[in-house]
């Protein structure tokens, strides 16, 4: 009796489960609806009532929390409920968090898929209301997503807390040891400096390239901008039709990177080095150069005051084309956020309020968003922040800003750039193979 019953009960239970699951395809068809209608063309405010803004920020970056604190000081009726996670975790969680517990303000990873899934609020009405449309539009281009998920045009789905830029930091004391008293003006001079460092027994570059984050993408993209047109790279990142990363110019850049690897300019263990190790080695004076972003300027000013310089990856020939990865510190508002008006007001405030702009420069180390002629705080001359801001204006004049090649799709960084760059270090991938492989992965991911 028992023995015959057991499978029947099991069968019954399993079929109930099956029935529960298999009756409909997974997933919905409707995007989450906004719980509060966004304020139309008029400038939104936080009102006088008590408001709790739900924030989802990135661990390790003190700027958003510092801005939130200052905002509460100026608008005591607004308080923040902040949750923090590492960027990789935010990347994994973004769709579900935006869907299930929509924050008012969220640090976003690559956002085109989030926008096409209807998870992000269209900020265009606020852009009109606050006059963001009068800012230099290059600041906002990267934050627009069209219906096809291509970036660069379409509605505004996010706003930046600032816009950051990458280049090369160098240790001034070590540079003096090899007789480098000013930033190299050409790639040839840069190569010579790297060789001189190596000959002097100094590790030329300690660049992170371990785990799922390939830091060699930083020098590679810098070289790409020296060899080719940054706009073409942006087109690829923005998924414009027919765009390819596999071009002769990019191949020249990848080959240049390969020559650095072959010459032993990178620390031996870069394939197991993470970002934190790179920072501690650079700050500890263990390497001459580091490819990184101006978000570390404030940190470097505090940790190695007066000893860290900055320059953009030099052009092939003096006065030639330069460019740099320059992206806004992207923050979005969930489509179903409870306080979209107040969130948008906060975003506008970070770009227009003098105290907020000062915080952005001093704490964040990067250029604030906003009108070209807006207030800028006084910066100590010769500081790292001073140098990165100066490089930022050179880059702006050269119109060399581009988004990060790792942001082309949600998975291209961890699944394509990183493994291929690690293979290049190990001699298991060629520069041509790298571009070919990344382009193939890109096409399969964009095609989805």
């Amino acid at each position, binding site marked *: 009796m028992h023995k015959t019953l057991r499978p029947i009960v099991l069968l019954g239970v399993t079929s109930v489960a099956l029935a529960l699951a298999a009756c409909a*395809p997974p*997933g*919905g068809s409707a995007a989450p609806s906004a719980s509060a209608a966004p304020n139309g063309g008029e400038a939104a405010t936080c009102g006088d009532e008590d408001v709790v803004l739900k924030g989802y920020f990135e661990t390790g970056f003190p700027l958003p929390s510092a801005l939130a604190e200052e905002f509460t000081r100026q608008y005591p009726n607004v308080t923040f409920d902040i949750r923090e996670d590492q960027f990789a975790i935010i990347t994994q969680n973004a769709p579900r968090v935006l869907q299930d517990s929509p924050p008012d303000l969220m640090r976003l990873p690559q956002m085109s898929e989030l926008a096409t899934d209807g998870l992000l609020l269209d900020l265009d009405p606020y852009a009109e209301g606050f006059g963001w449309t009068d800012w230099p539009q290059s600041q906002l281009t990267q934050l627009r997503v069209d219906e096809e998920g291509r970036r660069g045009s379409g509605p505004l789905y996010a706003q930046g807390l600032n816009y950051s830029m990458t280049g090369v930091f160098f240790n001034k004391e070590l540079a003096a040891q090899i007789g480098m008293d000013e930033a190299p003006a050409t790639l040839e001079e840069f190569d010579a400096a790297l060789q001189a460092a190596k000959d002097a027994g100094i590790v030329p570059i300690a660049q992170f390239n371990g785990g*799922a984050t390939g830091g060699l993408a930083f020098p590679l993209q810098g070289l790409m901008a020296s060899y080719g047109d940054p706009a073409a790279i942006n087109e690829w990142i923005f998924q414009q039709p027919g765009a390819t990363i596999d071009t002769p110019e990019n191949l020249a850049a990848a080959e240049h990177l390969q020559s650095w690897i072959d010459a032993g300019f990178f620390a*031996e263990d870069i*394939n*197991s080095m993470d970002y934190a190790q790179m920072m501690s080695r650079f700050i500890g004076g263990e390497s001459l150069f580091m490819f990184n972003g101006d978000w570390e300027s404030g940190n470097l000013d505090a940790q190695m005051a007066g000893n860290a310089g900055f320059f953009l990856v030099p052009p092939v020939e003096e006065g030639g084309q330069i460019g740099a990865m320059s992206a806004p510190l992207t923050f979005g508002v969930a489509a179903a956020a409870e306080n979209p008006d107040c969130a948008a007001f906060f975003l506008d405030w970070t770009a227009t309020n003098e105290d907020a702009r000062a915080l952005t420069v001093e704490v964040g180390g990067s250029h604030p968003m906003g009108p070209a002629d807006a207030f800028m705080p006084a910066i100590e001359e010769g500081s790292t922040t001073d140098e990165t801001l100066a490089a930022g204006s050179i880059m702006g004049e050269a119109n060399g800003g581009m988004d990060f090649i790792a942001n082309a799709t*949600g*998975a291209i960084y961890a699944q394509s750039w990183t493994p291929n760059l690690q293979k290049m270090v190990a001699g298991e991938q060629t520069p041509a193979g790298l571009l070919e492989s990344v382009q193939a992965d890109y096409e399969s*991911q964009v095609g989805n």
Partner: protein
Amino acid sequence: MEGVRTAAAPVESSGAAALTDERLLLRRRRRRKAIRNLSAYGLVLPAAGFYVFFVVRPIVLSAQYSFYEWNGIGPATWVGITNYIEVFTNPKLVGAILNAFELILYFTVLPVAIALLAANLIRAIAASRLAGVARTVLFLPQVIPLVAAGIMWSWQLSTDGLVNQILRLLGLGGITRAWLGNFDTALPAVGVIGAWVLVGLCLVLILAGMTKIDPALYEAARIDGAGPVREFFTITLPGVRQEVAVCVTVTVIAALASFDIIYISTQGGPGDSTLVPGLQIFYLAFYEREIGTASAFAIVLMVLVLVVVVPLQRVLRGRES
């Protein structure tokens, strides 16, 4: 039950009245039994409910998702077995499966062998205090969270870590490297972390098995002139066969379904040299947002584990099972 029925059915009783009585009795007994059964099922039901909801349902749902192309948010499209074809034809995914099989060497063969050896030594010195210390030391990794083990080992295996420092001390500076950052050594290095963690579990299981072996057997063997090696192969090894079977099963599953140690120490890198199915499923689901392929891979992994473990169980447990 038989006894009760016989006692309650008197042989000499006959006639309609007696028959009705018997039927009534039988019916009452059946009812009582049914109630007993029902209450038994009632007691099992909450646990079974949890099991179905948290174990069976996710498996069924994964099986369902594996037939769809779905990003986890929007509408899903039925794609049949396309996701399964992807799992078996994409070199990256196949590579992950092969890596998992290579890990069996480190997660299973190494710990079981070390545990057998250590258990045998500990048994030999059972009376001394050293045996207790050895047991504790070898079991310790088992109580450390795998994430902590991963972090600790990634420090020790780094360029300036303990492992390379020791090698330099021994005059082997030439072979030092970033063990987790090298294409040739990353998988073995992660394997060593796994072996280090799993030795304790195997040791405790095998030691427990050894206590069941009759000491008279060893005595008899010794009288027959057997040495320690002969003793080990003739008495100890067959005696702990069941325990070894459990060890192998658990560690093979740990190898094939590994995730945490690798996620912490290498995240699948460098390149794809330490990519394993568990990690790839995570990347597919949360980075590439391909819930369908991730689910198909998860189902394939589950079947793979069963295909490896079930025959292993048969072979290792032998006739006793």
